[in-house]
């Protein structure tokens, strides 16, 4: 069985945030405005975390791009009273907007704070609606949304390989963030395929996961900076 996962090499990452914007464009995530942002209600499925350690002049800053971890044991799925959040057979944790009742149990349960409530109706100027990606729905007010590993791309890739009468190969399905990464710091693929890049990188001595001790078993694996 396929198990989709992502590897982010922090030694290659340059914190440019191309992934952040690519995600917003691909998934019709509305841009925030100063008011919404100041209320901590801006939506970024993928965002950059900043950790600063030490005191001047011995300062270490870590900048970590953080998508949904697509945990194998996702806390958000457990708490959802209506089955809106689920984990698919290939490990993608997804949100069914039609079922979501906006209770926000999942936003609270998620230790990585990757689940976002639509506090407002998404506001788009009429002109910008032209840039909507037709493969992804617009979310209404009152539901929770999150990173999907661009699963609409998986559906399209499946259709394509079926039409071409072949198996899904590496590179057929890649999320928007991974596709744009200018320094090629992000990798995506099947964590179960021993010949794949992701499988091998996930076993690197530099590999770590965020808040690993919580037992959520994230499928986003980071490779630490330095030698």
């Amino acid at each position, binding site marked *: 069985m396929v198990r989709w996962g992502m590897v982010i*090499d922090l*030694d*290659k990452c*340059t*914190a*440019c*945030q*191309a992934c*952040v*914007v*690519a995600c*917003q*464009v691909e*998934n019709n995530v509305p*841009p925030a*405005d*100063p008011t919404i*942002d*100041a209320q*901590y209600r*801006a939506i*970024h499925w993928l*965002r*950059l975390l900043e950790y*600063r350690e030490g*005191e*001047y002049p011995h*300062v270490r800053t870590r*900048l970590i791009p953080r998508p949904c971890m697509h945990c194998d044991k996702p806390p958000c799925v457990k708490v959802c009273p209506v089955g809106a959040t689920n984990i*698919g057979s290939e490990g*993608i944790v*997804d949100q*069914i*907007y*039609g079922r979501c009742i906006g209770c926000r149990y999942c936003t609270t349960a998620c230790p990585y704070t990757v689940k976002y409530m639509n506090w407002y*109706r*998404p506001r788009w100027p009429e*002109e*910008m609606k*032209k*840039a*909507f*990606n*037709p*493969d*992804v*729905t*617009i979310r*209404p*007010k*009152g539901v929770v949304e999150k990173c999907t590993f661009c*699963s*609409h791309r*998986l*559906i399209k890739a499946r259709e394509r390989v079926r039409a071409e009468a072949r198996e899904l190969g590496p590179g057929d399905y890649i999320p928007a963030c991974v596709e*744009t990464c*200018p*320094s*090629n710091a992000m990798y995506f693929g099947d964590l179960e395929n021993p010949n794949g890049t992701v499988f091998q990188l996930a076993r690197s001595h530099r590999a770590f996961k965020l808040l690993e001790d919580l037992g959520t078993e994230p499928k986003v694996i980071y490779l630490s900076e330095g*030698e």
Partner: protein
Amino acid sequence: MMGINRRDFLTALGVAGGGSALAFGPQVGLKVFQTLWGEDWVEVPTGLETRINSICQQCPGGCGITVRLVGDRAVKIDGNPFYPINRGGLCPKGQSGLQSLYDPDRIRGPLKRVGERGAGKWESISWDDAIKTVITKLQEIREKKETHTIAIMAGETRGLMQALLERFLLAFGSPNYIRVSDDLAAGPLDAFYLMQGLKEGLVYDLEQANYILSFGCDLLQSFWSPVQVLRAFGYIRRERGSRARVIQIEPRQSITATKADEWIPINPGTEGALALGIAHLMIREGLHDENFIWNNAFGFEDWIDDSRISHQGFKGLVLKEYSPGIVSSITGVPVDVIIRLAREFATTKPAVAIGLRGDVPSQMAVHALNALVGSIDSPGGVLVARDIPVPELPPIEPDEISQKGAQMPHIAQPAKEKYLLADYLPHTFLERASTGEPYKLEALFLYQTNPIFSSFNPEGVAGALDKIPFIVSFSSFMDESSQQADLILPDHTYLERWQDDPVYNLKGYPIIGLRRPVVSPLYDTRHTGDVIIQLARGLGGSLAQAFPGKDFPETLQYYFQKLFEQGRGDLVGQEFEEAWSKLLARGGWRSPSYQTAEEFWQRLQEKGGWWEPIYYYGEGERVFKTPSQRFEFYSQILKERVGVLAEERLKAIGVQVRGDKLFLPHWEAVKPPESNEEQYPFILNIYQPLVFAGLINASQPFLQGITSPAPLERWDCWIEINPELAKKLGISYGDQVWVESPRGKLSFRAKLVEGAMPEVVNIPLGVGHKALGRWAKNIGKNPLLIVEGHLEPLTGRPLINTTRVKIYRA
């Protein structure tokens, strides 16, 4: 139109499997999709899904893009995997490009000012009327035989568009093409000129370097072509065999410093001194590249000239004046760190030292390190980009009036004795011209530039613009400068127009990209190239004959036809094609992937560009265009420019140093005479974050939304202060703080950052517009308003980080 009930909706989701992915493409047959809650109507695009290759223009980097279209709508921009600048990657600016195309605040047609200047009252007029207005004005100027009083100010533009604008001016009779580029991050170009005799083509071969020593150059954020550097960074860290070390020397812990192996805080403005300290140690310990210096350098040892006067060499000067102890006291960098840097730099080859375009002696000091380590024109060092072919346009035959006008002095040309190294001063000419020096302007055309915002003296520029009787702006957006215009002839955005994009990559290859329209123009805008040709035709005479095509696309085809005829290079390709081309070239062969000009043009549009992936090392006369045909530690170009200037002249331009030292890399404090350290104890350090470097993207909300990881710091401008200092001053996170310089004061939100030096306060540049649409207007502050704008004594360029300030709670 069709409503969807909840059951249908869930069924659709079930089919989609994933959940949020609801495929409602054209095959579903819905014309309009109404979301479940009936709040928003979204029209589903119909038509085929296609991809078109073009070139990005969110910054001057020149990345290849692939735009995904559904029907006639552009819905996503990604990197073009074939394009050698970016190889499929794209930065956040490139990603948000659709927000420039679909910006609701775009100018939708020609506008004529009706109210007072700057009052924002406009009247829509037709293109015919607009062009007629300009022609009438230009004819008036021509009849008065004052053709030299028109000028075109152009931002980051190059290639055919620049050629046409210059051609128009020349045929009309004006020398005044003024290129305004933000070249802070272009590297030490003045040193490159003084030491290698070249004005452009400075590239750093980062992909092969093993040790990168950056003197304040924020490589990962504000380099002129960001994606090239980002890609190289990923490559040198993990993709090749050995992992390169990156050392960042600068007063602020920038993103580059964060991602580097080591951040070395340094007193602002003393980077040059540190470079000399490193040079001192390298020479003293015999770690410099004797071979390179013996074969390719001039002025290293003391020497005697033709008239038997002995001169000091670089070695003597550095050994005498820049011992680690002295350098440490100037820079604040500990002696042991300087020693370690020198040894690492000299022994981890190939090593490269990268600087900024700051004061000239410091630029030279940094660039000299590359020669010491033998990294000039060698893999992993400083390369000189091979020339980009310039297809010839037919000659022009200006009439007598035009010839006379074109021979007038350039409006931005400084008095020769004032700035020795400046050909012209794009940053300050407007203010001088308004006082009639060298003459007043009658008409000004603004193309892709916004001098009011990007200037160090916005009021001065605005005042100067006010005195020009006729201003035309070609901007697609209502920026600060366009607000002062009399006429706006809006250009297409970059996703709607044809254009060539000549550029070189970090390997020194020439590349010409083809920008082509991905959607048809959304509004009643017109390609500025077309407008220029129409103006020329309207004016008639020799002007009309100066343009070979009837419109811009036709001229562009002509241009590429000429490129084809030159018989160089090939269409852009993958890495293995690069290796193949090189192999062929070595044997004197060339095998382009096209035979005829038609095929070339056709495949050029598919692939996105042309290139010539060949670099030859050791072409001495191409790499060193100095009088000695060598790398000059002792700059004879500078010596010749300075000539026999009298003592008081040197004093007047603010040069303290005398004798041979003046022509050698050295360090002198760039200390503005009026600075008062007691009253203004801190140094203001302005930096450019990636998203706004280039100063044209502030109107895009996706970019405003990522200026900082912390929500409270976005949609605003902040000041970074060291926490210890903040405690002393009673400032806490989020407070409004006044930053006061002798020129004025502005308030910013305080951000306490450990990565700030206690005596330096950092402010990002890019927001603070007074125009440019809903997402830029009145968001944040522009720190340039309090910058004193000291000018470099030799080049006349503004020095950005010499202002002293004091700060206190608002």
